[in-house]
């Protein structure tokens, strides 16, 4: 092998090693830059897919009616989501009134976002949305729909963000089960069945929890956590007793493969 080739080989490996020891923040900054570069291609691809998908619809309805409908649907989803959050607040308020206690509870500001790309990797469950730090989105903000929890933001670039889905193994959520005092840590599975909306595992429940299929699972909202309390995550599908604890298999409320519009919780009102 020529000396020049050996030198080049060593230089590339040294560069790779240098990159690998960068801080997670620096790597995320690089990824954000790459995401900004990639976004026009993703948006174009999504636009082409939408154009192809809406060819038939365009013949039946006027464009303005379609735009109005989209806008109203979006408003409706915001209202439904806000309503769900308020209902939870009302329930909690009633409980607290009964107990003669008071706890301040914030109402959340939602930002509508559109999914511009779905996950295309084998091992991670993520989507990309069309909102970034210019829109007020930050890292680790909850993402939801009117139906329930979707996930949280990870890398945020100028106008796009990556959302790690609740079905991903690395997205861990403190969760509670409706009608019980059971709380646990919920996460996705490493390998999700591609034909369904996925499954979640709720671990660290008590062994004698005896949860019934169909019971709803909500975020528990621990202090300084990412997710506020009371967001629907899914329904219990199955309960298993393990040597040390109980585990519930949860069916997610949101089927992200069918979801195009989501909301980012960008702060309190």
């Amino acid at each position, binding site marked *: 092998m020529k000396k020049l080739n050996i030198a080049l080989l060593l230089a590339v490996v040294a560069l*790779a090693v240098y*990159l*690998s020891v960068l801080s997670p923040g620096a790597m995320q900054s690089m990824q954000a830059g*790459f995401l900004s570069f990639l976004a026009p291609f993703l948006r174009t691809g999504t636009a082409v897919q939408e154009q192809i998908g809406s060819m038939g619809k365009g013949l039946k309805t006027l464009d303005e009616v379609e735009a109005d409908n989209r806008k109203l649907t979006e408003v409706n989803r915001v209202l439904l989501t806000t309503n769900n959050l308020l209902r939870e607040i009302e329930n909690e308020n009633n409980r607290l009134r009964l107990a003669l206690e008071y706890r301040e509870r914030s109402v959340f500001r939602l930002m509508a976002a559109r999914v511009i790309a779905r996950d295309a990797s*084998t091992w*991670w469950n993520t989507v990309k949305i069309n909102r970034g730090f210019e829109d007020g989105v930050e890292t680790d903000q909850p993402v939801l729909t009117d139906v329930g929890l979707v996930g949280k933001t990870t890398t945020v670039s100028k106008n796009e963000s990556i959302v790690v889905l609740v079905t991903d193994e690395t997205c861990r959520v403190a969760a509670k089960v409706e009608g019980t005092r059971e709380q646990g840590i919920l996460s996705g599975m*490493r390998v999700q069945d591609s034909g369904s909306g996925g499954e979640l595992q709720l671990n660290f429940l008590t062994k004698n929890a005896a949860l019934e299929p169909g019971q709803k699972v909500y975020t528990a909202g621990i202090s300084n956590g990412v997710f506020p309390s009371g967001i629907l995550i899914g329904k219990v599908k199955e309960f298993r007793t393990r040597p040390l604890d109980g585990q519930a298999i949860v069916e997610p409320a949101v089927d992200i493969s069918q979801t195009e519009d989501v909301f980012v919780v960008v702060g309190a009102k």
Partner: protein
Amino acid sequence: MKAVAGALAACVGVFAAFLLQQALPAIHVLHGARFVFVPMIFCYAAMALPFPGMLLAAFCTGLLSDLMYLNVAEGRVEIAVGCSIVFFVIYGCIANGFRLSFLRGHWWPVVPLSVICTSSFLLMQFAMISLRRDGFVYEQAILWRIFAPGLLAGLFAPLLHAVVSPFASLIPENPWSTREY
């Protein structure tokens, strides 16, 4: 010049492959396995290009790959930027060893190389995230998701050769030339 032109063409091809992969859905009948074209394109480039060009292609492929799949969980990066570069450099050195044979018209080694490179790339990703998370898990779907994309890449490799080889003459100082040997 030919190394740079060839490597740039390879980088554009790899980028296009990433976009194509992004658009293609998982294959349900193969337990959610996906089309993974990037290692196949890299293998082809590594066989066709001279060593410096292969290194440039390996760097671009690895960097794009790491940035595409970077996942930060609880403040920790699962696969650090740079790991895939090392993988593609090692694999590129192996594939580059077949260059002389490739220049003599024997393109078929790209098929087994694509199969092995694609599956071993996915296996490497799985091993690294397993080490970062709660250990290894075994499911039949995991084997499908590692080996099925490799086999698919092997099926598509001859098609890639059929599409790319007519364009070889467009690159200044044709990289398919055997002059340097």
